[in-house]
C-alpha cells in the first residue's frame, strides 16, 4: 500500500513541475502588466517596483527565483493587494471555500447515491422518472442559471433563505450555495450509481443471496451497494476538482469571501503574483485530492493495488 502511494506521489512531481513552468511563462509572456494603471507611474517608481518584484532580471532568472520560492512554500507577494502576500490571501479565503466545497461534496455523494439506488430499485416506475427529471435539470442548467432561479424562488418570493452573504456561517446561508454547487455532481453520481446498481442486481451473487432467502433490505445494504459504488468512487477525483472550480462561480453569485473571489478579482486586475499563486495552490489541492480518491479506490478494490 505504501509503495503504491509513493509511486503515485512520484508521478505527480513532473506534473506539478510542468504545470508551474507553463503557467509562469504564459503569464510573463503576456503583454501588459499589473502596473499599467489609468495614470502612468513615473519611470523611477516603475523601476523601483520592477526591482522589488525582480521584474528587471532576465526571465529565466525570475523563473528560477520563483521556483525556488515555491519549493520552500512561499508563493510570493501580491502585486495589487500590497499589504497581503499571496499565501495570506489564500489563508483568509480557504476556510470558506473548504466549508462550502466540502459540504457540497458530501451532499452530492449522499443525494446522488440515494437517488441512484432509488432509480435502480424502482426501474422505469415513477420514483425513477422523478429522479431522472430532477437529474436532467442539474445536468442541463449551468450553475450560474440555477443559482439566480433558486435565489428568486427561495430568497425573494418565499423569503425562506437569504440570497447571499456568509452570515457567520449559519446553516441558512449555506443551503443555497451548497445546493447549487452539489446539484450537477449529485446528478452525475446518481446516473453512475443507477447504472452500476442495475448491473449488480442482475449479478449471480445477488441471485445466490436471494436463493438463500435473505431479505431484500439486507441484500441491498450488505451485498449490492459496495460493488455498485466503484464507478462512483472513481468519479470523486474529477468531482473534487470540478467542485473547486465550480465554487468560483458560486462564491461570486452568493458573495462568499472564499479563494474563488480572490482569484477572479486578481485575474481581472492582472495581479500576476496572485493568479499564479492561486493556480498553483488549486493544482496542488486537486492533485492531492485525486491521490486521496485513488487511495480510497485501492482500498476498496484490491486489483488496483497490485497493478
Amino acid at each position, binding site marked *: 500500500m505504501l509503495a503504491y502511494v509513493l509511486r503515485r506521489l512520484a508521478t505527480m512531481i*513532473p506534473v506539478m513541475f510542468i*504545470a508551474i513552468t507553463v503557467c509562469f511563462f*504564459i503569464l510573463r509572456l503576456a503583454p501588459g502588466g499589473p502596473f499599467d494603471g489609468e495614470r502612468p507611474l513615473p519611470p523611477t517608481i516603475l523601476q523601483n517596483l520592477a526591482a522589488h518584484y525582480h521584474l528587471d532580471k532576465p526571465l529565466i532568472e525570475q523563473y528560477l527565483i520563483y521556483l525556488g520560492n515555491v519549493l520552500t512554500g512561499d508563493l510570493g507577494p501580491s502585486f495589487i493587494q500590497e499589504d497581503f502576500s499571496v499565501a495570506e490571501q489564500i489563508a483568509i479565503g480557504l476556510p470558506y471555500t473548504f466549508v462550502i466545497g466540502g459540504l457540497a461534496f458530501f451532499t452530492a455523494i449522499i443525494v446522488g447515491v440515494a437517488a441512484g439506488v432509488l432509480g435502480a430499485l424502482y426501474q422505469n416506475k415513477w420514483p425513477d422518472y422523478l429522479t431522472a427529471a430532477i437529474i436532467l435539470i442539474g445536468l442541463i442548467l449551468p450553475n450560474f442559471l440555477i443559482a439566480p432561479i433558486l435565489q*428568486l424562488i427561495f430568497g425573494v418570493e418565499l423569503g425562506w433563505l437569504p440570497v447571499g452573504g456568509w452570515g457567520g456561517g449559519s446553516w441558512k446561508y449555506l443551503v443555497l450555495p451548497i445546493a447549487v454547487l452539489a446539484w450537477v455532481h449529485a446528478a452525475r453520481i446518481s446516473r453512475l450509481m443507477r447504472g452500476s446498481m442495475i448491473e449488480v442486481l442482475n449479478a449471480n451473487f445477488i441471485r445466490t443471496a436471494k436463493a438463500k432467502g435473505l431479505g431484500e433490505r439486507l441484500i441491498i445494504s450488505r451485498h449490492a451497494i459496495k460493488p455498485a459504488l466503484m464507478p462512483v468512487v472513481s468519479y470523486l477525483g474529477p468531482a473534487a476538482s470540478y467542485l473547486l*472550480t465550480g465554487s468560483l462561480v458560486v462564491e461570486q453569485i452568493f458573495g462568499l469571501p472564499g479563494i474563488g473571489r480572490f482569484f477572479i478579482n486578481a485575474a481581472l486586475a492582472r495581479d500576476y503574483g496572485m493568479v499564479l499563486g492561486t*493556480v498553483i495552490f488549486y493544482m496542488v489541492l486537486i492533485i492531492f485530492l485525486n491521490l486521496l480518491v485513488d487511495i480510497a479506490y485501492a482500498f476498496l478494490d484490491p486489483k488496483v493495488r497490485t497493478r
Partner: protein
Amino acid sequence: MILYSARRAALMDDAARAAPKGRSLAADARRRLMQNKAAVFSLFLLGLVIILALAGPWFISHDYETPDWGALRSMPSFGNGHYFGTDQNGRDMLARTLYGTRVSLLVALIATLVSVCIGVLYGAVAGYVGGRVDQAMMRLVDIMYALPYILFVILLMVIFGRNVFLLFAAIGAIEWLTMARIVRGQTIALKEREFVEAARASGQTTFGIILRHIIPNLTGPVVIYAALTVPEIIVTESFLSYLGFGVQEPLTSLGTLISEGADVMEVMPWLLGFPALFLVSLLLSLMFIGDGLRDAFDPKDR
C-alpha cells in the same frame, strides 16, 4: 483505358440494378437517429434557434446596441414593438438575445473546430505511430488532464484579454484532450485492419495513411464527440462571460445577458428569462442530439 472505364461503369450499373440496394453505415445511422423522437424534436428546436439567430435580426426593426429612449425598461409588449421588452438602456431584448445567441454559437463552432482538428490529428498520430512516441504524447495529455481546465482558461483570458475569437480558439486548443484519447483508441483498433496493411504494402507514407485511411474511418466517434463538445463550450463561454471575462459591451452573448439579467431579476425578470430560455433550448437540443448520435452510430453501446 476509356473503353475499360466505360465497361466498368456499365458493369457497375448492372450490379446496382441487380443487387438489392446496400445500406451504408451513415444511412443506417440516419435511419436510427430519425426513429429517436427526442433527437428529432431536438433537431427541429436547434434548427429553429439557429434560423432565428441568423435571420431574425433582419426582420426586426431594432438593432442590438441602439437605445430606444422612449421605451427604457419596457416590459415585453406588442404595442411598442419590443416583443422581449428592453433593458435599462432601452436596448431591444429580442435583438440582443438573437445577437447573443449568434455570438455564442459562433464561438462554440470555432472552438469545436479547433478542438476537433487538434484532437483528431494528435490522437491519430499517437495511435498509429505507437511505441515511445505514443507514450510520450499520451503522457502529455495525462498531464494536461490533471490541470484544472477552467483555471487554465482564465489564465488564457488574462493573456488574450479582450479578443474573444482568439480566446475561443485557445479554449478549443485545450478542449481537445478527450477527443485525442477517443481517436487514439479507435486508431489502434483500425491500424491492424487489412485495408491499412494494404496501403502500407503499396508504399504509402505514414502521414498519407493517417490522412487517407485512418481519419476518414473515424467519422462516427468524432462526429458524436464533437456534437457533445459544442454545448460544453457554450457553457464555458457563458460561464466566462458571467464572471466578466468573456464578450464585452456592446457585443453580447447569452452568458453576458444572463449575468446582467440575474442582477435585476426581481424587477425586470424578462432580462433573465429570454436569454435563459434560448440557452436552455440550445443546451437541451444539443445534448439530446449528441446522445441520439451516439445511439445511432453505436447501437450496442447504450
